[in-house]
């Protein structure tokens, strides 16, 4: 189902606010009446979509999620769920499942009682409850643990129970606030996979909060990158990585080389940028309005080539001085000085015949102008 929606979106472009399942419209939030924590949030989420809010600490992700869940009220603007404004609906009548970062499993109840809770408050009978609980526990492969207390479970198991509890009453929408933050790397990756599987299987809509970019990229249909209370870019993972819309996104997601310069010529999306050392390079204009503007050119390390035979046709070549080679196992991370900037990084795969670079050596590197993106200055 989510595949279908994702495909549909690819055809029609972004979800519009009108047919969206969840819509934030011009939402603002202030806690103290002086500063805006969320500034003008506009977001439309399709039914069945897995949308991730990604951003640095304090950027307003949790706040946005809490407004959707009903624990915080929007200072202005409107939030709609399935077409209905929910600003005035109390949290317990929104029917939104939620997974908290600390799991928030009720410590005085067994796993079974934890799962029974949402069903009891909805007045379901015992038989029906049991069936749903078993189904939810089986879904997360925790069927044998119904009689345990949360304190008797490991972190990963608690996480699964929290997930099962958020799903047991069949909500259409599930919110997760850094649900894997407390797990170690291996378990986290495993749970990412399981959550993603679950999402695809039962077709619920998920709004997921994280500040782990890897998590966001691997799990989501779309990612909303937050900073400073605003969405910086809202796009599917590949687009976000390959075509970052501004310097913040380019910096925040993946590794990134930046070269400062000024726009010399502008023609459609082609720009000629004069770098600090006077060199002129071709770049793709992204966040650029006029000639003479100061810009930051962003190039991904893996798109930089240093072997002449591998250079893509039409590549821009430039001299570079090797400063440092760092051995990282699978790759050799080479730091060098390019056009005056001494933090330019090149990654070469650690293959058998790989040519070894030595510090002090001057080489010629190159990249395709399409991979050099002229963005707003940092």
């Amino acid at each position, binding site marked *: 189902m989510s595949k279908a929606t994702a495909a549909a979106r690819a055809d029609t472009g972004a979800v519009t606010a009108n047919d969206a399942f969840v819509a934030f419209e011009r939402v603002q939030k202030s806690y103290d009446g002086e500063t805006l924590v969320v500034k003008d949030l506009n977001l439309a989420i399709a039914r069945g979509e897995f949308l991730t809010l990604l951003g640095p600490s304090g950027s307003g992700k949790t706040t946005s999620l809490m407004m959707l869940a009903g624990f915080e009220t929007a200072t202005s603007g409107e939030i709609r769920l399935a077409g209905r404004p929910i600003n005035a609906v109390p*949290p*317990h009548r929104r029917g939104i499942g*939620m997974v908290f970062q600390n799991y928030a499993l009720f410590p005085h109840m067994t796993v079974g009682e934890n799962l029974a*809770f*949402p069903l009891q408050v*909805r007045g379901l009978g015992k038989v029906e409850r049991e069936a749903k609980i078993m189904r939810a526990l089986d879904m997360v492969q925790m069927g044998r643990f119904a009689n345990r207390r949360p304190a008797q479970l490991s972190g990963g198991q608690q996480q699964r129970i929290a997930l099962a*509890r958020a799903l047991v009453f069949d909500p259409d929408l599930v919110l997760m606030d850094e649900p894997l933050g407390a797990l170690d790397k291996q378990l986290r990756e495993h749970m990412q996979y399981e959550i993603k599987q679950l999402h695809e299987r039962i077709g619920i809509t998920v709004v997921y909060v994280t500040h782990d970019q890897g998590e966001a990229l691997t799990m989501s249909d779309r990612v909303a990158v937050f900073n400073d209370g605003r969405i910086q870019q809202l796009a599917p993972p590949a687009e976000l990585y390959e075509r970052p819309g501004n310097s913040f996104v380019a910096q925040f997601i993946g590794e990134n080389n930046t070269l400062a310069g000024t726009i010399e010529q502008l023609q459609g999306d082609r720009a000629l940028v004069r770098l600090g050392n006077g060199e002129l390079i071709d770049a793709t204009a992204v966040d650029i309005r006029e000639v003479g503007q100061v810009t930051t050119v962003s190039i991904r390390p893996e798109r930089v080539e240093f072997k002449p035979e591998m250079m893509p046709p039409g590549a821009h070549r430039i001299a570079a001085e090797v400063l440092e080679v760092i051995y990282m196992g699978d790759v050799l991370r080479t730091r060098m000085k390019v056009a005056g900037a001494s933090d330019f990084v090149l990654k070469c795969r650690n293959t058998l015949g790989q040519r070894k670079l030595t510090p002090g050596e001057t080489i010629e590197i190159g990249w395709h102008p399409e991979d050099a993106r002229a963005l707003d200055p940092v």
Partner: protein
Amino acid sequence: MADTSANGVSFAPAPAHRTGLVTADGRPLRSALARSSRRARRRAFFLVLPLLLFVLITFVVPIGQMLQRSVKNEGFSANMPQLSAWFHDNPRGTEPDDAAWAALAADLTAAAQARTIGVVGTRINYDMPGTRSLFTSAGRQARGGIEPPYREAILEMDARWGNPRLWSVMREAASPYTANFYLAAVDRTRDDQGDIVSAPAQQQIYGKLFLRTFWLSLAITATTFLLGFPVAHLLATLPMRQSNLLMILVLLPFWTSLLVRTTAWIVLLQQQGVVNDVLVWLGVIGNNQRLQMIFNQTGTIIAMTHILLPFMILPLYSVMRTINPSYVRAARSLGATSWTAFRRIYFPQTLPGLGAGALLVFILAVGYYITPALVGGSSGQLISNMIAMHMTQTLNWSMAAALAALLLGGVLILYWVYDRLVGIDNLKLG
């Protein structure tokens, strides 16, 4: 046991029979561990030794003495040795014979000369009120000695010496150990034959007093809970600045003298006091209908609730502070109304604090003395006031000790019941 090297650690080849693990220098691991932890324990013991001695000297020993005093009183047996010996030699039911009267005469004379006759009278007076004067006047007359025939001579002094009940009571007192104080504390006494019977109706005061102490303490515990719970919740959830201020208000009573607080309540609640004045001024009650709110049970409950409130609030607060707000949020997101979330999620998690607070308040209330003495009037007196009375006025320390021991026993039983129901490990005092 599986091969020990299976877990990747290499040990010396394990012998066929199990000898247990050994340390690198060949000592058995278990005894090496015991030795190293014994040293640490011994050091810790020396550190707490001063406190242990202090507790022993100021707490365990006095309580032991009190318990002993509740069953032991030598006022009669030590000062009337011959008569005590006669009682010892002759079984209950023996009519006092000549030897008995002779022993009584000799003891009375000796006690009168040693000026201990008052002590003897006091001891008998505990079990048979109104007999102290019998002994003191006999002592005055017997100072010069009593001439035989003793029976007639003594009965001549006072015919009450022939009362079989008096002889029964003296027989009881002839042994330094007695359960009579406990019997008296539960409104029982012994009849002429020494059998246990209910005390006369007008003397049955302790049972009622114990019951009243219990109910008033329960009422005080309930009111401290009702008043303290919301305050503790506010303390735990308000922003730091406001909660600090509130905490100062909660602790303020601790910084004021108990007497000042209690007398403040008298000022407020008495018939010509502030509260009554305001009510009259508002026209809620007429001037001649002023409420009696102090020097009765109401006064005791109000003043003690105020004084014991912090003992409820503080444990509750310390537990509530640790309850993550995301539990209630989770409950709400799962579809619970705020009331259901409170009842089923929040409240159960406060139980350890509530249990601690309730136990603390109840135990303090059961033994409270000064406040009921000041504001309780006659209907608001508790058992501790009776204990104090026996200590300071009737000087019947054995009786005071028996009452106190019963109180202590009651508290221990309560503690045990609590442990059974809730579990002491779940207690959270702070």
